């Protein structure tokens, strides 16, 4: 016999299920219960930087929109700092950098308003191109899927995470495309859960 390692094991994940909205967005489930639902305001009123909207649809392996998905976003501010004690700079008052969105039940379209993040520090003195971290849960997803959204108008060529993706066409699944609309800047970012156009997911 050898000595025992006394680490605990991570609690296994289970699907968020079709009624995830009850817990995490009860207004969408059809009832008001909390004074304040969390995750609607990512950047707050004082954040510096360009105000943007991000929009997209999540598609399943048959190409159909997934209409019961919930997405969480986690991002740095325009200076590249996260609202967390382990980030190396301060963020604006009211900037949380975290958002939670659900899709339209009829169309599957989702979207959120935020500020465009700045580049953030990477490993060993490198720099990561501006990105938003996304986490996707839904009925049929057994463990939340992590991916990243990068921006089409940035120089992403030296990003150490994007460069881990071997196939160039798969790297493109992580790039949101900029559209300058009459009422502001919109980045389009569709996510494909399965198939040839499958989005790159990360085991973080």
């Amino acid at each position, binding site marked *: 016999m050898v000595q025992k390692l*006394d*680490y*605990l*094991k*991570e*609690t*296994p*994940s*289970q*699907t*968020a*299920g*079709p*009624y*995830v*909205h*009850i*817990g*995490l967005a009860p207004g969408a489930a*059809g009832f008001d*219960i*909390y004074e304040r639902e*969390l995750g609607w305001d990512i950047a707050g009123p004082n954040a510096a930087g360009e105000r943007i909207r991000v929009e997209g649809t999540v598609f*399943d*392996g048959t190409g159909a929109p997934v209409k*019961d998905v919930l997405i*969480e976003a*986690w991002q740095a501010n325009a200076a590249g700092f*996260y*609202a*967390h004690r*382990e*980030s190396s700079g301060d963020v604006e008052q009211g900037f949380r950098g*975290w958002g939670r969105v659900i899709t339209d039940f009829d169309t599957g379209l989702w979207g959120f308003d935020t500020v465009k993040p700045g580049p*953030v520090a*990477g*490993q*060993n003195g*490198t720099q990561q191109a501006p990105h938003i*971290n996304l986490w996707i*849960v839904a*009925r*049929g*997803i*057994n*463990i*939340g*899927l992590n991916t990243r959204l990068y921006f089409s108008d940035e120089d992403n060529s030296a990003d150490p*995470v994007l460069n*881990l*993706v071997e196939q160039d066409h*798969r790297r493109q699944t992580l790039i949101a495309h900029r559209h300058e609309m009459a009422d502001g800047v919109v980045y389009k970012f569709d996510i494909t*859960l*399965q*198939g040839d156009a*499958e989005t790159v*997911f*990360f*085991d*973080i």
Partner: protein
Amino acid sequence: MRKPAEYYQRDRHWQPPALDRNYKTSVTRSPKFAMISLVNTVSEITGPVFGHDDISPIDNDLLKNYATDGDPIGERIIVHGRVLDENARPVPDTLVEIWQANAGGRYRHKKDTYLAAIDPNFGGCGRTLTDENGYYFFRTVKPGAYPWRNWLNSWRPAHIHISVFGEAFAQRLITQLYFEGDPLIAQCPIVNTVPDPAAVDQLVARLDMNASIPLDTLAYKFDIILRGRRSTLFENRLEGN
């Protein structure tokens, strides 16, 4: 000097795979290509922070937080436990959110059409922050089992959905709590996406008579384990954060 470094790699043999053909909805919602493994950067070791201003004190009492003319119908229970990491360290001040069906197995959701009745005094969601020792508690009613379309006669065991944040986006977790002794657990295709029986056991809350309130409320104990974190011993991989 010991400094916190990356989170331990997630054990993908312990966690459910994306595809399990017996859980039919996963068939078209599971990525086929391999995930790319990342060394944690500041993007993964940070995560949202919540405080008592974000929630209300009543939010963890599902007997009262939606009731208008009396208590909800059903077996009164306390669900309590600690949020720990894989190093057995408490995770303090972290947001825990739950949602569940009522005692009849019906969700208050516009997409749920099960014939069991809505309970006018039960919303079915709650949230709380762990204390400085990682401890949390809720009061609610025990949810009912309900049928769902997987195989024709599939029934979900009684369960409570739980969402936990931890201190880093890498720790983010959603799971489900089941109840000790429920014969439907072993039959459930969603439970059985978890491959290791010992891992399934980790999802089953144990009846906790010591925490129950005599003549009032039963209690179930459910600890939640989030990913643990390596210490920097000789190197400094995360420099530059």
